[in-house]
């Protein structure tokens, strides 16, 4: 199955790389590139402006994409605002909503920098939700903290980008609402792997990036409940978000257009839709991804001196580990030299690294195109790297 999927991705037709860094950014299927090409070569025009037919066509495709992407995550069309990515989406909420209404934000220890720094920049105090030893949020502590701090703002990742932990989002949202808190979910690592239904989850905000889910760079989206979006002031000002401008005063369109100032990432929005459509037609189940992840974990556990950081079962998309006595960076370089691309380091999640007392990890992260073959090659390459890095100095003969 996954070998067939690989064929949809020109990247894999062009080289023999084992790509295990999809949590950083995924490869893109041909159809996504084609759809963007179509825009650029057949109906390239600006959107939401003066109405010639070319512009109309571009606007229609743009708005159809919004519609599709919104439906894909269970949202209404008007509740989906395009942003550069998850990072911008969170900065936007921090600046246009949370800053003026809250003084603190509750985050888990697992968060990505993109769900930490935006709050700090707005001068908000961060309260940290503690984890259990398997890196799961301690639900009792969570509820206790919110009980003591009702009407607060909470922001939590759906899936951890460094340890694959799937947080019990529905429960977390439920508890948040019980204490009249509002909650943003960082969906950067979820979109490519889980069926998301923001209405069923009852999330207040949900942020995603296209490039981690087979889509182009430079585009992402924020879902927000319409009433919340309506209460928000514009994040940026410029063309196509106004109803009236004068030097004294301007008035703004309704959401989502209110929040989309200036020329949008038009080709990218169109490519984003194509990516989700591709994802949808694959009808890949989470099960198949689970099988691969379990396979990888099993193989890794077979390595001597392996250090894993969670035994949790609610894990998806990526595994982090270290080899005791070896620097993760050394492994990363030697794997790269063997055409295996994966990320080593702090994965933009310094706080959890610090808490675990490490500088970083080696991370395998998966997408639908990965195969057991990929895992086997990787394990072999890791063994080779360990061998080179740990054998005695000058013991040249042993390396062959």
């Amino acid at each position, binding site marked *: 199955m996954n070998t067939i999927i690989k064929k949809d991705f020109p990247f894999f037709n062009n080289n023999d790389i084992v790509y295990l860094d999809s949590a950083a950014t995924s490869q893109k299927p041909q159809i996504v590139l084609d759809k963007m090409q179509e825009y650029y070569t057949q109906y390239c025009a600006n959107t*939401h*402006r*003066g*109405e010639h*037919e070319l*512009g*109309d066509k571009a*606007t*229609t495709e*743009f*708005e*159809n994409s919004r519609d599709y992407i919104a439906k894909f995550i269970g949202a209404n069309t008007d509740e989906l605002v395009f942003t550069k990515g998850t990072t911008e989406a969170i900065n936007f909420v921090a600046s246009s909503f949370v800053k003026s209404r809250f003084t603190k934000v509750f985050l888990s220890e697992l968060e990505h920098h993109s769900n930490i720094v935006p709050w700090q920049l707005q001068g908000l105090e961060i309260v940290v939700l503690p984890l259990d030893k398997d890196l799961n949020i301690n639900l009792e502590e969570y509820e206790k903290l919110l009980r003591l701090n009702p009407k607060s703002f909470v922001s939590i990742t759906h899936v951890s980008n460094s340890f694959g932990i799937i947080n019990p989002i529905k429960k977390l949202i439920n508890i948040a609402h019980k204490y009249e808190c509002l909650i943003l979910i960082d969906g950067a690592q979820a979109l490519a792997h889980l069926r998301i239904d923001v209405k069923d989850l009852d999330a207040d905000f949900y942020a995603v990036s296209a490039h981690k889910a087979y889509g182009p760079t430079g585009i992402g989206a924020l879902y927000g409940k319409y009433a919340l979006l309506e209460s928000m002031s514009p994040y940026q000002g410029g063309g196509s978000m106004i*109803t009236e401008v004068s030097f004294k005063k301007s008035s703004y*369109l309704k959401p989502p*257009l209110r929040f989309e100032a200036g020329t949008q990432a038009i080709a990218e929005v169109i490519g984003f839709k194509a990516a989700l459509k591709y994802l949808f037609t694959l009808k890949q189940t989470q099960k198949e991804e689970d099988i691969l992840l379990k396979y990888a974990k099993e193989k890794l556990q077979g390595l001597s001196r392996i250090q894993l950081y969670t035994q949790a079962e609610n894990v998806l998309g990526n595994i982090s580990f270290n080899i005791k006595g070896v620097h993760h960076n050394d492994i990363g370089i030697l794997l790269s030299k063997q055409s295996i691309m994966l990320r080593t380091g702090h994965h933009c999640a310094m706080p959890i690294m610090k808490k675990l007392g490490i500088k970083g990890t080696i991370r395998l992260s998966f997408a639908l195109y990965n195969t057991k073959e990929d895992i086997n090659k990787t394990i072999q390459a890791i063994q080779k790297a360990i061998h080179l890095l740990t054998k005695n100095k000058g013991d040249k003969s042993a390396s062959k």
Partner: protein
Amino acid sequence: MPQNKISKEIKQLADELELFDDVMDKYEYIIELGRALHVLNEKYKTTTNLVQGCQSQVWLHEYEKEGKLYFEADSDALIVKGLVQILIRIYSAHSSKEILDINTALLEELHLSEIISSGRQNGIASMIQKIYTYARQDNDKK
């Protein structure tokens, strides 16, 4: 989709418009419809009746008489006036129920890109929205 008087009117208008093989002739016809549009009394050109478009302004005045909804409108641009005339022919003098039975997607049969435009700032699109909102309000009263 139920067949009612409105859908028949749309069908008939579509047939009429299809007779033009030259698109410029078609628009000439629309311009003439625009010129023929019943002038809207100035007192109805109010801010409430204004449906703001990015390009041209449309004023839409609605009223109910004997269970039927009536629409009168005007615009500052001629082609828009013609399109407005077409929409009035379609929607005026029908009950709110009849209007609500019609999915706006049906208007696509007219092949007038200006009528079904995704540009949310399109005056015509806003006018159609206003017609339906009015019909919904009227229907809710019953």
